[in-house]
């Protein structure tokens, strides 16, 4: 099993509309809810904001990775969302965010799924991987990248 197996086309958007962090997290959670990944949007978003309050997920370089583990997550997943407009995210490097990777994992997820999500986080620190991902303009390009890179 590789990262491609967790790709859901409904969670990949190349021109995502949202005015601020709150709106974008709500919007991506909506996508997750509509594609059957989470059973309760309100509770999931609550978990994400709780995590944000502990530590910003604006990891710099224009990327944010809001996330949480929650009982309301029915299928582990991630969004790959390129924003129409940059938004403030209280990032580590102070720069606005233009790409949002939101991670969702159930509390009882098996290690295989957790391993895939964490390998995505790990690979994001690789300059080539990150730049290829944020510059990708099709799902095929993303799938190819994930297949090449596999796990860390």
């Amino acid at each position, binding site marked *: 099993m590789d990262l491609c197996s967790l790709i859901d086309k409904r969670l990949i958007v190349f021109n995502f509309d949202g005015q601020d962090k709150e709106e974008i997290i709500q919007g991506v959670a909506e996508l997750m809810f509509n594609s059957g990944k989470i059973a309760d949007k309100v509770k999931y978003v609550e978990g994400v904001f709780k*995590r944000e309050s*502990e*530590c*910003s*997920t604006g*990891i*710099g370089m224009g990327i944010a*990775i809001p*996330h*949480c*583990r929650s009982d309301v997550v029915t299928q582990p997943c991630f969004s790959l969302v390129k924003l129409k407009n940059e938004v403030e995210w209280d990032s*580590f*490097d102070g720069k606005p965010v233009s790409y949002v990777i939101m*991670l969702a*994992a159930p509390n009882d*997820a098996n*290690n295989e799924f*957790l*391993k895939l*999500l*964490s*390998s995505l*986080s*790990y*690979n*994001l*620190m*690789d300059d080539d991987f990150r730049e290829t991902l944020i510059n990708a303009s099709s799902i095929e390009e993303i799938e190819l990248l994930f297949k090449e890179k596999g796990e*860390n």
Partner: protein
Amino acid sequence: MYILAVTSCPVGIAHTYMAAANLKKAAKKRGIDIKIETQGAQGLENEITKDDIARADGAIIASDIKIKFPERFEDLPVLECKVQEAVKDALGILDELLEAIS
């Protein structure tokens, strides 16, 4: 020179692994041998052993929560920091430890 590190965060699927990736990159840049144990949602991975402790020159604990088995590092010079500091500036953290033990 042999450095150990533990990374950990409350959720255990993101910051833990980004910090580990950046510490690894920083060590490579300085030409230093490093072993990084991640304490994430999957539990302990790449676990630091007694042998590792015996031959290590120092350790970095990058965590926002209490790590598991901190007593292992009692006899080593340890630099503790928040996990986001290791994501943000792993090289700075590593250099700080190297300076302290050199």
